[in-house]
């Protein structure tokens, strides 16, 4: 396997499993891209070689266990923060699992990500520390960097359960060029039966888009794009969906990344889309090249492309002088 194209093809159309010759490579790439669980659920009921079937069953069972653990962790945070009265919005994997949304089956869930109003940050931090979470970053520069410029607190880890929590107070770093309105997203969020909240459908898509294209270096991009595909397929049945999505994307300063997400999602996962909104762009090829840069041994490929996107991610995050100082500090370690 020269890149991850086979993986996206099988995810999009599991009936093509009969064409897979190297299952070891496919599973290896799926693990490296953190979509092994997703792949295993997609292939549930599809004929595959016997030992592959057994491995997929293990992966499914493991993913179900991980999901239980993630939902439990959200419940622990809910209890820890209940007395603060702060609205707690679950993000990403934990939100999908807790609200039982379409990307959930098999989705890997790392940390617990929550969004809270910026004004409530001190209360939230205090309550979490009191309930057994501790700082991970020991370095004073890192701590200050997070507090001053980032969209989240420095990560915390629970001392008994060994699970991380990322407390976001906005969508993108404070220094980022794009400025989604986090408070509006919190105001429009939807309550779950247990009192925790998830983003409204449009905002949920936009948040996934923001994290894929406006923030990081596209690491884990195939998984994030899969989330977007699943959410769009579920939400697009609502009347006026595309109009509302476009209006919200404009409002949150995320129209261009959203259009790119639609195109790439359709390119890899055959997502039905609104052609007018999606538009076209010659640079999609470069993004696709980066997203697929993984060989059959799970190794990152295309060093130059990756480095380019790494630099871009920092460029999007902060102004040039600040970036220079930040990279200098990192290089000195």
């Amino acid at each position, binding site marked *: 396997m020269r890149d991850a194209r086979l993986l996206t093809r099988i995810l999009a159309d599991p009936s093509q499993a009969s064409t897979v010759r190297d299952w070891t490579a496919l599973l290896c790439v799926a693990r490296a891209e953190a979509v092994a669980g997703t792949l295993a659920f997609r292939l549930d009921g599809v004929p595959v*070689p016997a*030992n592959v079937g057994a491995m997929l069953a293990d992966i499914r069972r493991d993913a179900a266990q*991980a999901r239980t653990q993630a939902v439990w962790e959200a419940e622990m945070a809910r209890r820890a923060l209940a007395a603060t009265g702060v609205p707690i919005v679950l993000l990403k994997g934990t939100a999908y699992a807790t609200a039982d949304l379409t990307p959930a089956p098999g989705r890997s869930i790392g940390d617990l990500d929550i969004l809270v109003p910026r004004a409530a940050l001190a209360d939230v931090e205090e309550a979490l520390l009191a309930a057994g979470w501790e700082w991970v970053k020991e370095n004073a520069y890192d701590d200050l960097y997070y507090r001053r410029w980032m969209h989240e607190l420095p990560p915390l880890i629970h001392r008994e359960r060994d699970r991380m929590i990322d407390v976001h107070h906005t969508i993108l770093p404070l220094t980022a060029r794009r400025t989604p309105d986090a408070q509006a997203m919190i105001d429009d969020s939807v309550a779950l039966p247990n009192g925790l909240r998830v983003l409204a459908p449009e905002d949920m898509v936009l948040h996934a888009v923001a994290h894929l294209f406006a923030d990081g270096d596209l690491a884990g991009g195939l998984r994030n794009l899969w989330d977007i595909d699943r959410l769009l397929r579920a939400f697009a049945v609502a009347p006026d969906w595309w109009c509302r999505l476009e209006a919200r994307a404009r409002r949150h300063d995320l129209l261009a990344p959203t259009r790119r997400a639609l195109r790439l999602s359709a390119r890899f996962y055959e997502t039905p889309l609104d052609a007018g909104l999606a538009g076209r762009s010659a640079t999609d090829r470069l993004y696709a090249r980066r997203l697929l840069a993984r060989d059959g041994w799970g*190794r990152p490929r295309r060093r130059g492309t990756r480095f380019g996107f790494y630099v871009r991610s920092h460029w999007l995050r902060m102004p040039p002088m600040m970036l220079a100082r930040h990279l200098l500090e990192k290089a000195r370690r």
Partner: protein
Amino acid sequence: MRHRLALRIGPVAFRIGSAWAAPLAELARLYAPYPAADGAADFTVRLEPAAPWRRIIRPSVAIAGDYTLPDAAPLPLAQGLLAAEMGMNLQMALGQKRFLLLHAGVVERDGKALILTGPSGAGKSTLAALLGTRGWRFMGDEFGLLDPESGLLHPFPRAISLKNASLALFDDVDPERLGPVLRGTPKGTIRHLRPPADAIARMAHSARPALILFPRFGRDLPATQRPVGAAEVFVRLTQASTNYVSLGERGFGALTALVGGTPARAIDYSSTEEAIGLVEQTWAAQG
């Protein structure tokens, strides 16, 4: 990867890739009599240069694969075989979800399995290897694979890693079964020993757990054995398992059934001969 090798050990298949030929040549020689591994591999292990130029200049082997530890230190190329073994262990410890893993030596007699577990240095590896030459079938010296559904232990007869003083105990084995002497490793001097032929021939045969032993080695310890309470056994085994927590309820069920149905004893010893004697005596007493 430039070089590759497929290995099946018990119920687990590995695909191992390497930037250098030597580690895989040593691995292939050590595992020569093992049956061919066909079909998809459960885990991928990669032995790759710690930095691009470290493939040739002062070659340095970083252990990677499906699962990796971010702070694992690379090894010199001369210890490439150890890197491969550590890579396989790492995949098992972090990625194995079918079986409850017990950090233990396991041997079998009459279809019944004896589990030897305890902290590093307790002698479980050496004892399992020695018992494997004295009327027991060697099932593994690193991991016991407990199937939560059947309650059976599956063999995982990897090459035995002999450390430091225990190397001398196997001086008289067929040299064909021994790997190179690896000096100056993070665990001292290590030499790998291919398990006995019957361990390999019967590596598809599981066994029912019959006795759990907690050996303790000390030069001044009088040879003795005593019972261990079920709660104590349970806690010690949760600590001896790398995936007990991640298996959730299945792990709890598997361990509860094992502890409830299997007698356990602690044995203290100051020499391997004493230990073998204590094992035989304790085994016989269980009937």
